[in-house]
C-alpha cells in the first residue's frame, strides 16, 4: 500500500461518506448535522465530532460556498514563463499579491499558473500589471469565456 493510499485508509468508510455525500446541497435546516446523523443512523454529536476532525486535519478546507465567477467581480487564469532559478522567489511574490489563489508550477514553457480574482475589471488589470512587474515578462491572461462543467464537487467513493 502506498503512502497515499494509507492517507485514505486512515479514514473510516463513514468519514469518506461524510466527505463525499455533502459536497453540494448541504442541509438547510436549524440542525443540519442532526439531519445528516439521522440519514446514517448515528448521533448528532458523532457527526459534529467527525466533521471537526476532518476540518482540523485538513481533509476539508471548509463547509462553504463556491460562487459563480461569471456573476461577480472579475477573474482570470494567468500564466507566465519564469526562469527555473527564479521560480521559487517569483512564485512566492506572486502568491502574496492580493487576489491570487491556486498558484501552481506546471510542466510547460509557461511554468507558473495562477488564478486572479478581483472585485472589478480595473483592479484585476492592476494585479496583472503588478504580476508583470514581478516577473519582468508578459503575463498571459486567459479569462473564462464559457463554462461547460457543472460543479459537482470531488467524487471520492466512485468506482474508478
Amino acid at each position, binding site marked *: 500500500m502506498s503512502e497515499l493510499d494509507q492517507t485514505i485508509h486512515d479514514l473510516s468508510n463513514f468519514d469518506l461518506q461524510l466527505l463525499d455525500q455533502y459536497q453540494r446541497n448541504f442541509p438547510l435546516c436549524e440542525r443540519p448535522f442532526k439531519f445528516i446523523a439521522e440519514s446514517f443512523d448515528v448521533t448528532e454529536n458523532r457527526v459534529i465530532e467527525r466533521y471537526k476532525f476532518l476540518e482540523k486535519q485538513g481533509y476539508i478546507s471548509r463547509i462553504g460556498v463556491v460562487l*459563480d465567477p461569471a456573476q461577480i467581480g472579475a477573474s482570470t487564469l494567468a500564466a507566465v514563463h519564469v526562469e527555473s532559478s527564479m521560480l521559487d522567489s517569483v512564485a512566492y511574490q506572486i502568491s502574496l499579491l492580493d487576489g491570487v489563489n491556486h498558484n501552481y508550477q*506546471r510542466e510547460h514553457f509557461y511554468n507558473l499558473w495562477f488564478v486572479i480574482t478581483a472585485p472589478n475589471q480595473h483592479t484585476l488589470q492592476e494585479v496583472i500589471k503588478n504580476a508583470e512587474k514581478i516577473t519582468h515578462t508578459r503575463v498571459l491572461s486567459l479569462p*473564462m469565456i464559457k463554462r461547460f462543467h457543472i460543479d459537482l464537487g470531488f467524487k471520492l467513493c466512485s468506482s474508478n
Partner: protein
Amino acid sequence: MFQQLKKSILARLEKGLPICERPYLKMAEEIGCDEQYLMNFIQQQQNDQFIRRFGVIVQHRKLGYTANAMVVWDIKDEQIDAVGHLLAHQDVVTLCYQRPRVLPYWPYNLFTMIHGKNRDDVERKILSIRQKHHLQGPFDVLFSTRCFSQNGAKYFSSKLSMEVEFKHVK
C-alpha cells in the same frame, strides 16, 4: 441595503460554516440577521446559481489525489460547444472551460482539469478519453509539479470586498 447585507453574508460564508449544533444561528448572530433569513438566502442564491455549490469543500491533495493535470485542447471554434459538453460530462474531468487563444503564444482554447492518485493514473484517464471520443486534434498536458497556494477565491472577506461588483447574467 440589501447589497450590503448580501456582501456581509457572503463574506461570512466564505469563511465556512461553524461546526456546531446550530451553525446557521451562530452565523446569523455574527452577521446580525435572522437564522431563517440566512437559510432562505442561501437557498435563494443556490436557486439563482449565484452560489454554484454549497457544501463540504475537500482538499483533494490531502485525500491522496496528488497528481493533477491541466489538459488543454485546440478545438475548432465551430466544434467547441460540442466538445466542451462532451468533456465536461466525463467522470474524471472536474473543470471544463473555454478560454481565449493568445496567438502566437498560446493556441489552446479548451481547458480541462483531471485529477488522479499519481501520474500514470492521470495519463491513463487522458488516453482513455481521447480514444473513446476520437479526439485527434492538438492538445497538451500540463502536470502540476508544485502547489504554491491553493485557497478558494475570496471576494467578500478580502480588504477590497466593498468594491465588489455584481453582474447580471441570464
